[in-house]
């Protein structure tokens, strides 16, 4: 027996809105232009659904980047009615407008239509070494961390690398080499992590002419973050760490390793053997 759930009003066309989408094909166009499309809106329909409707029913040449459709992958960040948002999380009816203007993220090169080239975001992210750095031997168990130690950086782990913050950042618009709020927030996330020992390795990048000190604290990054991360706060906290370091030194105390786990030890042995085998080959 199948149970059918009927949601009142779900599936009915509520109204028609106009999508004004910025189009740009580097192979054909010299400059970007706007195209308008009429989209019938049903309850629960997101801006991404609207874009996919256009792609399926009106203009298949429209390009947009998307994947999970539930605000996790961060692929569909774009500027919707003047603000950076995830298209899959933005309900058309909640915008309460008859005209929806869709632009690709700013401060990036454009690949096509609504698809920005996020290389700058990923390169900057990579430059701050966004992983736990340890100088001691490979661990045979987890590094121990208290819940209150995790709280220090917990918020910054929510970043999904959608790139909305870089698009909103006014410094990013002026300074090509600026690290940007995403990379700086992630640098703080790892420096504040009690398991990390990589402060010195990140110092040259962070304490540079285009590093943490170039933030003007406009706060636009925190305003637009779809996951509620506050990169502007991370930047202020990072400045505090760097200032402390430049006068008194900043020392990280490594978190202890927990009780040895046989499975981890065996796993490490297997890994070492595989590395040796691959080196022989």
């Amino acid at each position, binding site marked *: 027996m199948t149970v059918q759930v009927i949601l009142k009003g779900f599936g009915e066309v509520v109204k028609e809105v106009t999508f004004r989408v910025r189009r740009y094909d580097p192979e054909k166009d010299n400059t970007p232009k706007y195209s308008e499309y009429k989209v019938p809106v049903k309850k629960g329909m997101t801006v991404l659904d609207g874009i996919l409707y256009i792609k399926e029913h009106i203009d298949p040449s429209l390009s947009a980047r998307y994947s999970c459709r539930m605000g996790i992958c961060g692929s569909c960040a774009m500027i919707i009615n003047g603000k950076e948002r995830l298209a899959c999380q933005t309900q058309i009816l909640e915008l309460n407008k008859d005209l929806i203007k869709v632009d690709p993220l700013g401060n990036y090169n454009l690949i096509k239509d609504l698809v920005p080239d996020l290389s700058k975001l990923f390169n900057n992210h990579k430059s701050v070494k966004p992983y736990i750095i340890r100088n001691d031997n490979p661990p045979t168990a987890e590094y121990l961390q208290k819940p209150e130690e995790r709280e220090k950086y917990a918020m910054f782990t929510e970043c999904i690398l959608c790139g909305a913050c870089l698009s909103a950042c006014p*410094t990013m618009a002026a300074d090509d080499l*600026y690290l940007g709020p995403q990379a700086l927030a992630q640098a703080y996330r790892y420096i504040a992590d009690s398991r990390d020992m990589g402060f010195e390795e990140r110092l040259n990048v962070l304490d540079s*002419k*285009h590093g943490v*000190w170039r933030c003007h604290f406009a706060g636009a990054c925190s305003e637009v973050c779809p996951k509620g991360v506050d990169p502007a706060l991370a930047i202020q906290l990072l400045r505090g760490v760097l200032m402390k370091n*430049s006068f008194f030194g900043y020392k990280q105390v490594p978190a202890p390793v927990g009780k040895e786990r046989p499975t981890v030890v065996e796993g490490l042995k297997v890994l070492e053997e595989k590395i040796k085998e691959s080196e022989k080959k």
Partner: protein
Amino acid sequence: MRESKIMFLQYLTGLLILVFGGLHFLALSFLTPSPDKQLYVYQSATNHTLVGGALYYNYVLDIYKNLAWAAVFELFLTVVTFHAFNGFRIILSEQFSGPTASKVISYSMLIIGLIVFIWGTRTILLAFLG
């Protein structure tokens, strides 16, 4: 020098500008180095000291001849010059990024800042020596 130390100096000079700027404002607006500081106030029975009133030009020049005040003005000039030209360096290096541009901006700001500082010092010295 690391950017954090330069920025520390930038914040410190920002605060010192408030202090020395306040003293400068005081000197030009309220303090009277001359003993002859009585003013007759129109339609008033008594004379008043010149608190809150404007100074005669000669009184202002007298301030510059005082060694302590000259030192304050020299310090004020130092912090303002550093703060302003480091500020210009930051603004320009945001607009023109790249290692060559960075060097050109840093050295040109240093040279122009030094010229302004020397010229300001000359003015303070000339006023001090009368």
